[in-house]
């Protein structure tokens, strides 16, 4: 560890929040339908979308209507992705000559990209045609991210409404978030990334002859355009198997800084946008602070673990100051540590280091940040929405202690909201731990593991954790491209995405119908240090206690085995 490393980590984490502040105000204007400086260009396009779809963007939907529209749109997206992947062998723009993908892989990939997970059971450069990458995967990168954002917009409106009925218009939220936020930012970022070295071509590959005379086939893609939305949309699915460790996706420390910041930027922006739209800036700043404390602790922990002595290096009497297996020289431990925390704290899943080769506790941190529910800052909108659910639970717990009906942002929190909040929060461990428990005893599932022992259990637990949390990163020793894994991971992605989304929208519907209360002296303040501490406690107890037994059998056992190996080698 050195000061440069700590400074690099602090800059990367801090820059994302700093940029998100003004960006959040802009995002809030987009959600609220206020004027923006892009109106002259984008208003006509937006109007065209509404006219073609027969949509009245000013018509506010009930939460049922909003959720129905959201589910219908995602169902159509699922079918489209599935169909194109199955048929890519006979469709155009397939210079690689790839065949259509198998039914279970197409199911998994469709679920994966529609749910904003971007789990990849396949290697990009060996499976997906240019058409598949562009036409379905890139499109889903945009619209799945926008889908997540819509629920935050709806929830923010519910807190402002006074005995209202509607939570906004799903179609307008979807179209406006895509056109005004994701598309312009992606265009700018893609061009910047090309200038910094990312390829952007429709050619599939180029043949080189190395200095030693050997042939080298170098895979190419329209990399920059997909990379930009992959990071900004908090998707994480790379065009190459090695993802953001691949020098074409992430060639230099500067591109690493820019793309890492891009992973968290819009997640934080959605926090600030929610604060502005819900007229609760100070309260939301407390949520940002709580999330930032947990995220920073995660990044620092990984920097520490990755500079501990790795058993294989110690045993071979090699310089063991950094665990370099699965890391790139240009990034080293600090950039890897910042990325591990930012990609698992958000629901990105892109990687610049191989998580399976992290030190045991480094891998545990990655899993734990996902198990906290993807709220640090999580996906665009989906992160702040679940964080608000956590805040409802925190005020509820505080209310129980003092015997008062809890309030949050001027709304009474009652039985229905808490039931729905628990539904949103409990489906996650049910899927993560339930599927892991079954897979751990099923021979069909165990065939896919690369490791036996605790690391094997970690491969299983990481897989279902990542899928349910809609993250998408992996302990990639797991060979997931098999019927059992593709199917069950696809199911856990769907559960982890749509159950919380519907629960959040139902909470929005319930809150919107309640009267907006004036601030009273009796209500617990939710913008100060006491609340931040309480919230962190609720998040850690909900996450930590449920998952501790599983983590103890996986990475924590492995940690002690690693310590024993290092001690034996000395």
């Amino acid at each position, binding site marked *: 560890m050195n000061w*440069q490393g700590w400074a690099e980590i602090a*800059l990367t984490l801090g820059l994302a929040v700093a940029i998100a502040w003004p960006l959040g105000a802009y995002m809030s204007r987009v959600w609220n339908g206020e004027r923006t400086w892009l109106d002259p260009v984008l208003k006509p*396009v937006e109007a065209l*979308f509404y006219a073609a*779809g*027969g949509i009245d963007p000013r018509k506010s939907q009930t939460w049922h209507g909003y959720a*129905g529209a959201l589910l219908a*749109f995602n169902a*159509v997206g699922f079918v*489209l992705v599935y169909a194109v992947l199955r048929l890519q062998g006979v469709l155009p723009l397939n210079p690689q000559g790839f065949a259509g993908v198998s039914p279970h892989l197409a199911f998994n990939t469709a679920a994966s990209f529609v749910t904003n997970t971007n789990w990849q059971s396949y*290697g990009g*450069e*060996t499976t997906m045609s240019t058409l598949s990458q562009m*036409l*379905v995967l890139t499109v889903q990168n*945009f*619209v799945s991210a926008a889908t997540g954002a819509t629920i935050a917009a709806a929830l923010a409106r519910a807190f402002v409404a006074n005995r209202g009925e509607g939570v906004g218009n799903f*179609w307008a939220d979807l179209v406006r978030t895509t056109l005004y936020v994701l598309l312009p930012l992606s*265009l700018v970022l*893609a*061009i910047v990334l*090309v200038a910094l*070295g990312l*390829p*952007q071509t*429709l050619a599939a590959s*180029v043949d*080189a*002859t*190395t*200095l030693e005379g*050997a042939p*080298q086939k*170098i*895979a*190419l893609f*329209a990399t*920059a*355009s997909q990379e930009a939305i992959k990071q900004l949309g908090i998707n994480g699915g790379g065009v190459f198997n*090695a993802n953001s*460790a691949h*020098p*074409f996706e992430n060639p230099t420390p*500067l591109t690493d800084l820019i793309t890492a910041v891009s992973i968290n930027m819009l997640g934080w922006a959605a926090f600030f946008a929610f604060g502005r739209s819900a007229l609760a800036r100070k309260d939301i700043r407390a949520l940002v602070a709580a999330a930032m404390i947990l995220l920073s602790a995660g990044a620092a922990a990984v920097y520490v673990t990755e500079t501990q002595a*790795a*058993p*294989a*290096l110690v045993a*071979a009497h090699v*310089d*063991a100051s950094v665990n370099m*297996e*699965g890391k790139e*020289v*240009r990034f080293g431990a600090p*950039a890897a540590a910042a990325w591990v925390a930012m990609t698992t704290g958000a629901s990105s899943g892109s990687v*610049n280091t*191989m998580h399976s*080769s992290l030190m045991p506790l480094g891998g545990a941190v990655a899993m734990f940040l996902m198990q906290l529910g993807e709220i640090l800052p999580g996906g665009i909108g989906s992160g702040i929405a679940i964080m608000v659910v956590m805040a409802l639970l925190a005020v509820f717990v505080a209310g129980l202690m003092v015997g008062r009906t809890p309030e949050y942002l001027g709304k009474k929190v009652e039985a229905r909201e808490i039931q729905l909040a628990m539904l949103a929060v409990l489906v996650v461990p049910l899927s993560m731990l339930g599927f892991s428990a079954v897979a751990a005893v099923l021979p069909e599932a165990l065939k896919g593991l690369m*490791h036996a022992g605790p690391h094997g259990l970690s491969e299983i637990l990481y897989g279902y954790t990542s899928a349910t949390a809609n993250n998408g990163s992996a302990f990639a020793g797991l060979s997931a491209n098999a019927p059992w894994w593709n199917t069950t991971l696809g199911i856990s992605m769907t559960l982890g995405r749509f159950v919380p989304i519907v629960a959040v929208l139902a909470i929005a519907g319930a809150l919107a119908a309640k009267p907006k209360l004036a601030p009273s002296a009796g209500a617990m303040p939710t913008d100060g240090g006491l609340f931040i501490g309480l919230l962190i406690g609720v998040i850690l107890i909900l996450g930590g206690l449920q998952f501790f037994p599983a983590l103890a059998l996986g990475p924590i056992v492995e940690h002690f085995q690693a310590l024993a190996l290092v001690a034996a080698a000395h």
Partner: protein
Amino acid sequence: MLSHFRPALVLMGLFTVLLGLAYPLAVTGVAQAAFPVQANGSLVRDTSGTVVGSTLIGQAFAAPQYLHPRPSAAGAGYDASASGGSNMGPINEALARRVKADADALRAENPGVVIPADAVTTSASGLDPDISPAYAHLQAARVAKARGLAKSQVEAVIDAHVQGRLLGFIGQPRVNVLAVNRALDARAPG
């Protein structure tokens, strides 16, 4: 619910055209016009115009007159159409054996030196174009001998290719293997 399918289908169609076709093609057009070198993979050509690789993509070197890259888990090694890491866990015995074998071989060549970690570990991509300055200098004696150069001459070439941290703290110091090997070839063909 059924009434939602018309807008769902229409919007998905429009998004597919705008985001799936227009967006990547527009970026491709701008990229090819403004940054053709980067957009086509930062390719390196020899004097006859043959592509010898990409500055960004590592390639295998085994001959003594060249700097060697890190071990690679991409395909059979530096397969630039099958990127990936070893994914071996930290207490994997096969990893320990592989690291020990590579370290022993390097020590046999260079008795008494400290082996840097990047020399015996696979990268995340399997295509890492860089090695640490320490690993580059470790190889200077072998390269100099094979080329009939003084060790100091090879070290001068390596030093000229060390890229430091951005602004003094971002990223890690590194040496691009292909760039050094091309510079060595230009100076004294091996």
